[in-house]
């Protein structure tokens, strides 16, 4: 059941990201639901599924991306793993915790992504990080928490339930 739900959620996320999400762009910043999905997936399913899921989704992105092959896969595999390790026994149902967790994980993802993309240019990295990564992380976090809240209300299922 969990597997079916995860695959369904992934298809929805992929479709949203590829089609309608650009309509929600504000000042050149748009939500990155794929990172949010990897965080959710790693947080809920543990380190191994988190790592492999992040790798798979990242590789899917890399196939169609202009950057070096494997960059998104690496960044997402790392956060899939770290989130699962760090998020164990964290109160997932608390909105504040969710916000802090998603936001921090996205920043880690962007640290890796922009760290490689800017090729060691410190000034460019700082610029990209503060101009792109931080606003994207904040916007995606708010967007994801709202989406999760709506989905939980509609389905009456705790998508980010606490450990039992």
């Amino acid at each position, binding site marked *: 059941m969990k597997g079916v739900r995860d695959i369904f959620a992934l298809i929805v996320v992929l479709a949203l990201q590829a089609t309608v999400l650009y309509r929600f762009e504000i000042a050149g910043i748009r939500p990155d639901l794929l990172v949010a999905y990897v965080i959710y997936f790693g947080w809920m399913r543990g380190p191994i599924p988190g790592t492999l899921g992040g790798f798979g989704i990242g590789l899917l992105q890399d196939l169609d991306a202009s*950057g070096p092959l494997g960059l998104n896969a690496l960044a997402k595999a790392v956060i899939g793993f770290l989130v699962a390790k760090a998020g164990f026994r964290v109160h997932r149902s608390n909105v504040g915790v969710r916000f802090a967790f998603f936001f921090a994980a996205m920043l880690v993802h962007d640290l890796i992504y922009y760290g490689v993309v800017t090729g060691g240019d410190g000034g460019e990295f700082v610029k990209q990080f503060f101009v792109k990564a931080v606003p994207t992380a904040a916007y995606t976090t708010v967007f994801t928490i709202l989406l999760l809240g709506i989905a939980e209300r509609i389905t009456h299922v705790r998508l980010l339930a606490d450990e039992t």
Partner: protein
Amino acid sequence: MLRYLFFRRTEWTVFVATALVCLSLMLLERRAQERVVWFLQHTVLAPAEAVAGWTERGVGVYWENEKLRQRTASLQMEVDAMRAERGENARLRHLLGLEQRHPYVLLAADVAGRSLDRLGGSLTLNKGVSDGVLENRAILTPEGLVGRVERVTAHESRVLTLLHRECAVAARVARTRVEGVLRWDFGDQPTLHLLYVSSQEDVKPGDLVVTSGLGGIFPEGVRVGTIDRVGLEPNGLMKEIVVKPAVDFRSVEQVLVYTPSGSGAVAPSDLLDDVRPAEPQPGGTPAATDSSAAPAGAPAVSSGAVAP
């Protein structure tokens, strides 16, 4: 040792192995990366793209309808005005003894899906072979060149934008007609570069870059972007030129598929007229590089989706 790694430290082993695979992929040479991408695209990505296309048609149909109704109303008014102008134009041409021009067909298409990366390396269009779209057709917007069709199915086509590593364009600087090849480069700075321009050539930031028509895929004279920075390559022989694209690939919604109507009929004069190099203005930017100049696609849009 292996037993310890696999059974006691499974999580860390999987993580380290995955990270090593990623790093190996990143360290592969560009050609090897392209082979891996090609293989995976034809096995993994094709179904995902199909799903994305179906969703866009399903979810976006309401929004598109609203927008299309408004566009239809305004376009109808434009068409009426253009019909009158076309009649007048034909009469004047007849008087002047000029031949008919416009040896090309423009087909309007909607963007049904876009690449999952943040840059916008590819687009999926809702038109395919059944609509007359073929591989390697140039894709334009009123702002300028978008890219080329990479592959087509019956009702969809995949477009590589200028921000894709496999899309290279023969281009020239409109002011000085210096030629080069425009290509996305994922070097230290992921940007569009105009390559193979000698260090002796006259190229300045702000110059307009247009297609040169060499290679036969892209029509001549279509706006591509403006020069952002000019430097020298480490060897000192070539210029390092960074080009800012004219089109925002992340938000493009409608495009035009360019099809030469005759065999080898390229170089539509209308497209060229708007970006023909202007006389250098002393102490100022040449008129051709003015961003307010009519874009390459402007006459193309007004010429409609059928061959005149």
